[in-house]
């Protein structure tokens, strides 16, 4: 009889193109998300956060951590966009960190993943990992195309749910992380039939952020 967690993974592109305002906005957005979740008793009891970054390689800078113990990390932007390594690491995190239901214990809630990227992959391995994620559906994944240069088609190969944030201003990132917070709050409820993929119903995205059809 262990605690059932809602695992939330943020996969943040920290390649060189994110230098400056975008990376600073992501950092303050993560802090804002943490504050928002700390104001919600259900999130404090069940939400666990992890931050995975990707540039030349991917790194899990914060392992899955309960909200009350979470420390927003420092993030530095530089290098290429090794998207494949990020997806590989995400799959590895699922393997090691997610508790699935067995006859002896209830599993976690289905993980919630937010992928932020402002560019196109610079590696060639990512399609294989994207295919694995689509086939196995181990999480509810929301990909965010940040700015005009983001490769929407690539993100669409990871998940059907891709949203576009054209404007990379601090206000846009703040609104996006509010959306993340609202999604987390809304997720720990009995979801639709598995025959439909067990998809969650997301809150409406904020102004300036659109769902890519």
């Amino acid at each position, binding site marked *: 009889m262990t605690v059932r967690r809602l695992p939330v993974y943020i996969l943040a592109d920290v390649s060189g193109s994110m230098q400056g305002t975008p990376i600073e906005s992501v950092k303050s957005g993560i*802090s804002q998300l943490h504050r928002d979740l*700390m104001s919600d008793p259900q999130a404090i009891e069940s939400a666990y956060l992890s931050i995975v970054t990707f540039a030349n390689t991917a790194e899990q800078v914060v392992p899955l951590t309960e909200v009350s113990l979470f*420390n927003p990390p*420092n993030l530095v932007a530089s290098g290429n966009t090794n998207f494949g390594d990020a997806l590989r690491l995400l799959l590895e995190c699922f393997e090691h960190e997610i508790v699935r239901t067995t*006859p002896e214990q209830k599993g976690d*809630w289905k993980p919630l993943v937010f992928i932020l990227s402002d560019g196109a992959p610079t590696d060639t391995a990512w399609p294989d990992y994207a295919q694995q994620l689509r086939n196995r559906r181990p999480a509810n994944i929301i990909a965010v195309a940040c700015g005009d240069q983001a490769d929407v088609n690539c993100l669409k190969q990871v998940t059907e749910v891709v949203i576009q944030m054209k404007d990379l201003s601090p206000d846009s990132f703040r609104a996006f992380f509010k959306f993340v917070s609202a999604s987390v709050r809304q997720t720990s409820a009995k979801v*639709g039939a*598995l025959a439909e993929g*067990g998809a969650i119903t997301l809150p409406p995205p904020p102004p300036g952020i659109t769902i890519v059809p």
Partner: protein
Amino acid sequence: MRPEPATSEVEPGALPAAPAWLDRAPEGPWCPPELREALPWAAAADYADLRTALHPWRAGWTLVGASRRGRLHAHRGEFREDAFGIETGEQFFLLVAADGAGSCRLSRIGSECACRAVVRRLGAVLADVVPPAMDSPALHQWLAALLAPALSAAIQDVAELARASGIDPREFRTTLLTAVWFASPAGELLAVSQVGDGFIAARRSDGRVERLGAGDVSEFSGEVSCFVPDDGASTRAQAIAVTDGADVTAILLGTDGVEDPFYPIERHGALLYSQLVGGVSEPAQHFQRQESQGPVFAPDGDQQLARWLGFERRGENDDRTLVAAWR
């Protein structure tokens, strides 16, 4: 090796004070205007965050039920989405519990209507039926065959409500747990049917607490493969398991708000039963709070059950419904 959490170099700002759970009244009518014509009884129905029932039956049986709004719904000012029903006749009693899917807008209506439909449909076929003189296996089949179309019709009632009101049937999604006790001259029978998660269990005279229904378990919490009134719900509901009831001393039906803190019921059902029959003197392991109280299986069982459903366990803040019979 897993990396350690990075030390914060970003000013996180002041974190809010630890938030308290709130107890907000639901906003708006329990039955929305677009359903009032289809559900004339609903206009006069009084919604309550907590509903209880206690029915003595014959042959030493007492039936008790309670449904309590969970802390999460209370915090958000939302309605309780669980429901239950109890019906008795000369030769039967039936217990039903339902848990509206949290992601569906009208699941509270779906769970309540499903319980009412089961009570009405099964009550009608059981009221005056004369059981044939036959041996035990054939009698099991006869009872299952009697109940199957009535359960299917009850599910169709929910689907028809959606159709008549022009609303997507998925908005009414609910689980449905049903147990029927039938006392025939040839013997006592217990029949169960389950759509979705939650549990149905029987306590035998040798002390075993046995799960009877087919639980809907998936890889992650909160995922259910089929709800009422989805396609396929009738098929699942008609997969009725019938067992001899001579050595059954209690029957328990619980929604996932009860099952999850006691998961797996196969292992923790005995603890659950012992608390119901013997009261609570100390909190169960891993529970943050569970008040001392008298037994639920008692003349004031409805009030005791309402108290019992108030236990606190981290992360378990769903509505809770338990319907039971004991002798």
